[in-house]
């Protein structure tokens, strides 16, 4: 029996000091043993972060207060520890890494110094010894060129490098407990894989207990020893990885797992001869950052991109962050002007039309954005937002609002939502509103730029289903942009893989995603976490393939 490092027992965290106030965390009990990784999963807002911050003693003062239960770190009660004692424990016994590596590091202090602070606060090593130790640690987390990075500011480092710095900072004093709150969510799949491997290796070497928070089942499958599922501030169930994945007992867990899209492409739809509605020919975009007197800086974000999309079909664009996916989408919708090549919409060239001439064509192509929180004007009612397009194209207001009501029903929202404001809706609901807005103009083409990436898997599944249904009903062509291969596999007829602004591979989804020709595509597929599992069917993929 190994030691229990973290023992959370019946923890209650309330909003405000009053124990009878709203409970954000309600009776959660968890244990993490030495050398073990416990993954906490659950939808957004289920209390994962609050739990971890409670352990660290970093809850926002006055707003969130632990009002019951106990949290013990190697036997020491943390809830009653003084601020001073907590400060001593942080970084020495327990450490934490956060989701956003860019914002989690102080932008104005060189990263070496930021690690150094930990040593200065908790040890009395001299400057040279500290530096030695830091450099060693940086090498340990497999950072290249450590001397240079030591003196670099965070913005000079890539996301993966920043996250390695965070890990180095967390582990430099070899704490007993490492809390990782979605440490890889903001990273590319390839980088994510490296970081996950790193955490695993370090844990093995040092016997650290890891509390790993994520909402990505794939990551869970890669890293967890045991899994805890949370919902609405309560623990739903907990068990070993295998048990949870194969034989979840609770309905919620089953739903969660079955919402995870499979990496195995869905059954291909029949090829059609429907007319081509959208064509991109050798599209190119060079961003020029012009300054008043200075030299212009150029970024070629898209090069020679050629795409074809037929009515009723879905074309996916996949690729790593920064590969130019959004650039292509925005050129096609003419939110930005392409620097070369052409875009034909329903047979009409639109890439060189002026703002005025473009106006009649705009309604034929609509776009949905990634961030459901920012894509709706918070000060305009949902009804007005949806009706805006039709009104622009001459529909009387009353009629447009009636149409908005219909559309809301189409996307499964109550019709009375028209008079409400966006902040009264959840992320998934907002994304439906955005879809309704796009549909209001009866477009031929719908461009979805990471339209489901910000959503929980269960919600994601619902939205994907909705898109599918709408496509069937209205025969709309869908240009679907995503970095998530699982999603692409489930929704696309054809897939284009982008790297550095170029399309490296293009073809039917089944072919590209199962028998990739290009090394890049292969690497991408290899890095996808949990690709060994077919979550929806509660079994490993090998079995499914049989």
């Amino acid at each position, binding site marked *: 029996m190994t030691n229990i490092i973290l023992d959370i027992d019946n923890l209650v965290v309330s909003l405000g000091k009053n124990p009878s106030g709203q409970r954000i965390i309600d009776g959660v009990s968890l244990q993490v043993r030495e050398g073990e990784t416990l993954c906490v999963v659950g939808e957004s807002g289920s209390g994962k972060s609050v739990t971890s911050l409670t352990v*660290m003693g*970093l809850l926002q003062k006055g707003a969130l207060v632990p009002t019951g239960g106990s949290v013990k770190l190697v036997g020491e009660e943390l809830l009653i520890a003084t601020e001073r004692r*907590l*400060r*001593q*424990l*942080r*970084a*020495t016994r327990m*450490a*934490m890494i*956060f989701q*956003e590596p860019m*914002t*989690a*590091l*102080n*932008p*104005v*202090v060189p990263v070496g110094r930021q690690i150094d*602070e*930990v040593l*200065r*606060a*908790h040890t009395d090593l001299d400057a040279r010894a500290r530096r030695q130790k830091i450099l060693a640690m940086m090498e340990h987390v497999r950072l290249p060129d450590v001397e240079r990075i030591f003196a670099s*500011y965070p*913005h000079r480092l890539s996301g993966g490098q920043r996250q390695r710095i*965070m890990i180095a*900072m967390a582990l430099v004093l070899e704490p007993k407990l490492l809390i990782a709150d979605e440490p890889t969510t903001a990273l590319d799949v390839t980088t994510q894989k490296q970081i996950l491997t790193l955490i695993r290796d370090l844990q093995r070497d040092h016997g650290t207990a890891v509390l790993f928070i994520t909402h990505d089942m794939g990551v869970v499958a890669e890293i967890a020893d045991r899994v805890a599922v949370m919902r609405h501030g309560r623990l739903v169930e907990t068990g070993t990885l295998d048990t949870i994945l194969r034989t979840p007992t609770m309905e919620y867990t089953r739903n969660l797992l079955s919402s995870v899209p499979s990496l195995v492409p869905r059954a291909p739809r029949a090829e059609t001869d429907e007319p081509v509605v959208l064509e991109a020919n050798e599209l190119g975009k060079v961003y020029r950052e012009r*300054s*008043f*007197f*200075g030299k212009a800086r150029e970024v070629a974000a898209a090069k020679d991109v050629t795409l074809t999309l037929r009515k009723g079909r879905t074309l996916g664009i996949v690729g790593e962050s920064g590969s130019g996916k959004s650039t292509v989408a925005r050129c096609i919708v003419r939110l930005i002007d392409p620097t070369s090549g052409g875009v034909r919409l329903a047979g009409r060239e639109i890439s060189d039309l002026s703002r005025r001439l473009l106006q009649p064509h705009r309604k034929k192509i609509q776009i949905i954005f990634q961030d459901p929180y920012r894509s709706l004007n918070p000060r305009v009612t949902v009804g007005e937002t949806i009706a805006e397009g039709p009104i622009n194209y001459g529909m009387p207001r009353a009629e447009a609002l009636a149409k908005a009501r219909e559309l809301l029903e189409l996307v499964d929202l109550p019709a009375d939502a028209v008079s409400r404001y966006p902040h009264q809706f959840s992320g998934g609901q907002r994304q439906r509103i955005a879809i309704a807005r796009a549909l209001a103009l009866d477009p031929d083409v719908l461009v979805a730029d990471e339209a489901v990436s910000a959503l929980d898997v269960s919600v994601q599944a619902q939205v994907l289903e909705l898109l599918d249904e709408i496509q069937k009903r209205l025969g709309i062509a869908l240009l679907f942009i995503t970095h998530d291969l699982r999603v692409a596999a489930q929704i696309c007829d054809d897939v284009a893989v982008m790297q550095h602004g170029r399309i490296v591979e293009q073809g039917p989804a089944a072919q590209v995603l199962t028998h990739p020709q290009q090394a890049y595509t292969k690497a991408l597929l290899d890095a996808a976490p949990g690709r060994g599992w077919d979550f929806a069917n509660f079994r490993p993929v090998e079995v499914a393939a049989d």
Partner: protein
Amino acid sequence: MLGYLLRRILAAIPVMGVVALFVFLLLRLTPGDPAAILAGDNATPEQLERIRTTLGLNEPLYTQFFTWIGKLLQGDLGTSLISNVPVLTMISRRIEPSISIALSTIVLAILVAVPLGVIAAWKHGTWIDRFVMGLSVVGFSVPVFVIGYLLIQIFAIDLRWVPVQGFRSITAGFGPFFERIILPTCTLSFIYVALIARMTRAAMLDVLGEDYVRTARAKGISETGVLLHHALRNAAVPVITVIGTGFALLISGVVVTESVFNLPGIGRLTVDAVLARDYPVIQAMILLTSLIYVTVNLLIDLAYTLLDPRIRY
């Protein structure tokens, strides 16, 4: 960096051009005749006319403008119409008091306001916060001259700690300089402290909500370390910015403070010149102040690069 500096300085030229033209036109359209003040009450129209011709005030406006610009480009700021003294001499003799109070005000204000703002943000929502903010709004809402008179009454007349008025050059010794500069500085600092403290508090509140502050706390370093090393440095950019934009405010304050404390500075020189329509002096002064403004803002932009490594030019 050097290239950036050069570009900034080039970019300042149109600004100065706008200022020069605007001021020139505004002044020349303003009624008022320096010849009249020169000649005094009993002067006859012929005498006025003679003086006007001698001063070149009868030339067409554009001729006057280009003559002025031409001389300016040769480094000649002209001669005061009223006192016949070269403008450059006038300004150089009177710049010390103004610079002294402006600088000491900025220093004092920063020394007082930044800690106040930091504490207010740290103790956000407590009575300390409210007290600091209340104080800063009061500083904002009392006219400078009222503050000046109050301080004089208390410290110079009732307590007799310092002289009532006047200025001694720092070359005459620090003691006399200091005792005459302290009240004007305090007077002027009021509004500036208010401004900076508010901005510091707001910026600190923003920064304290950032992830890296949470990271710093998670490292187990002390609260002062978190506040000063992590939060304040990141809050510095908006604070520095407000110090820069507050500079214009400072100039207005300087004008009044110089009158109240009888400091022979350039603020009063300018107001006197405006009231006497001493065009060469006004034009030179406005150019000077806008030059200072442009320079201050340039320095502030440079300070950004020192404070925030992400900003590069």
